């Protein structure tokens, strides 16, 4: 055993500490700005330690007549319904692709794999959605690109392939159908990978604004991320809120802090579920990258 140089360890830990702080500090800045008094922003700019704190932005967003609640509802509905559908579709297909008694499972695997390698791009995707009548419906936020992802399918398949086929055979002898085997035997055994894809799909739904910018013009259907996108690019969105300025008893609207407060409310659920997210995310990456 060589003695470890203490100096190197200390420098190493300090370096990693600094990097990890840099990864989270910018988000803290957004958080602090959302609590800053508007006049103070006008005077000192955005500050990590605001000169004057204020809850005006949150008061306005939560009690004023803003589109926040509606967009929140849209995002929650889309994420919940979408994730349930996506996980069901993916895990069912994963079972068939993994079951050793299915003769055409490799052919089916190839059928899905080809679309992963060859991508026709934005325009065909857009046109097919128009033809299906997806635009300006809530389905536009749920189905295209999001409800099924072949990468997740292969993640599930690889995990399920490790289940010994003797289990299926025994169940078959007892007269169980493939539906029964999939839902009652395979899925409960595959909870870790199902949790992982739930998380992958859930995050993809929550953070998606691409479908909205492509297929939704109706303000009533804006998901939270797209509302946020619009808030920063279109001053009119904020001016619409002007009417509810009365709630604060002030003439000027806390524009800057309202933007940042909306951003904070948007990542709220991510922070709330973070311990879960992180655990299953790492697990999923390892399942995905260690497969042979």
């Amino acid at each position, binding site marked *: 055993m060589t003695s470890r140089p203490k100096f190197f360890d200390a420098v190493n830990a300090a370096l990693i500490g600094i990097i990890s702080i840099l990864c989270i500090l*910018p*988000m803290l*800045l957004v958080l602090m700005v959302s609590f800053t008094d508007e006049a103070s922003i006008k005077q000192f700019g955005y500050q990590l330690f605001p000169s004057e704190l204020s809850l005006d932005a949150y008061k306005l967003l939560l009690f004023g007549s803003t589109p926040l609640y509606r967009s929140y509802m849209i995002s929650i509905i889309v994420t919940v319904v979408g994730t349930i559908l996506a996980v069901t579709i993916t895990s069912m297909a994963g079972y068939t692709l993994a079951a050793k008694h299915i003769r*055409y499972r490799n052919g089916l695997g190839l059928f899905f794999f080809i679309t992963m390698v060859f991508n026709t791009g934005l325009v065909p995707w857009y*046109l097919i959605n128009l033809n299906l009548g997806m635009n300006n419906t809530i389905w536009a936020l749920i189905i295209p690109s999001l409800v099924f992802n072949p990468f997740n399918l292969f993640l599930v398949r690889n995990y399920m392939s490790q289940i010994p086929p003797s289990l299926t055979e025994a169940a078959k002898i007892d007269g169980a159908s493939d539906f029964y085997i999939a839902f009652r035997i395979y899925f409960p055994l595959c909870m870790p990978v199902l949790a992982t894809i739930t998380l992958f799909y859930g995050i993809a739904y929550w953070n*998606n604004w691409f479908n909205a910018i492509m297929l939704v013009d109706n303000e009533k259907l804006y998901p939270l991320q797209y509302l946020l996108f619009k808030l920063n690019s279109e001053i009119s969105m904020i001016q619409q809120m002007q009417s509810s300025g009365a709630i604060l008893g002030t003439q000027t609207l806390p524009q800057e802090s309202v933007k*940042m407060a909306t951003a904070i409310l948007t990542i709220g659920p991510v922070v709330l579920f973070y311990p879960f997210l992180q655990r299953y995310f790492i697990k999923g990456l390892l399942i995905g*990258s260690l497969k042979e």
Partner: protein
Amino acid sequence: MKKSRFGFLREIRSNGSAYLLVVPAAIYTLVFGYFTLPYMLIAFQKFNFKTGLFNSAWVGFDNFKFFFSSPRAWEVTFNTLKLNFLFIIVGTLAAMALAILFNELRSRWFSRITQSTILFPHFLSWVIVSYIIYSLLSTDYGILNRVLAFFHIDPVNWYASPQYWTWILTTAAVWKDLGMNLVIYLAAITGIDDSYYEAGRIDGATRWQLIRHITIPLMLPTISILTLLALGKIMYGSFDMIYAIVKDNGLLYPTVDVIDTYVFRSLRTIGNPAQAMAVGLYQSVVGFILVWGSNKIVKKVNPDHALF
């Protein structure tokens, strides 16, 4: 032939319910994957929404000529390749170096806590990241200009200065994916057999020698596979990221407008799907050649590291 058809029917009859389970995913893939193929043909049409795919007039390569005769063609292609190369190279080097540092870390809880914070940005949408960048760089209120003022340096109008944006976007991309890459590379390092290190230590290797001659070479398969996968998307310029951050700010186009944002504007702002498709087709073809070519090179150097 007859026998195989009989085999097919019997397979469906005996395992029908298993095939039923795959139907939703298969329909989805058929519609959003295979059925999109014919639409690529509109690149050769004077397409309009009324006449559709079947009745629009054919115009040969006119749409391509329009794109390639404009100076923007070279600009967006160059920007796409430039940004993606930087994202891949800087991102890989940063994550690799960080993974090696993490591997030397002794304290378990410190490693876990710092990993959590480094992973956090990965879960943010690019819209949120655009707010973060705005809060740092905004001309009026941004924190960076205040810091510059503190050091008596003139403030910079960041959103009107394209020369800085190559590196601003690279920093943002690396920052966001650092945690994810760290987890993958750290797993690759943990997977290295301890006996290599023991043998090295017996021979009197220093810590740096162990890293250079054992850790780095044994990380190469993981690195080359991830890099190849990334190269496959090199013509696709992360629309999500660039459009969220830059939007329609024409001042920044010279350094950050990429093929994806160009296609988006042709389709949605200008409203010319045929033209957008021509650019998209060019994008897919060049992209495919690049993956295929780089895979071939990797295969020649070391067959084990190739993707296919």
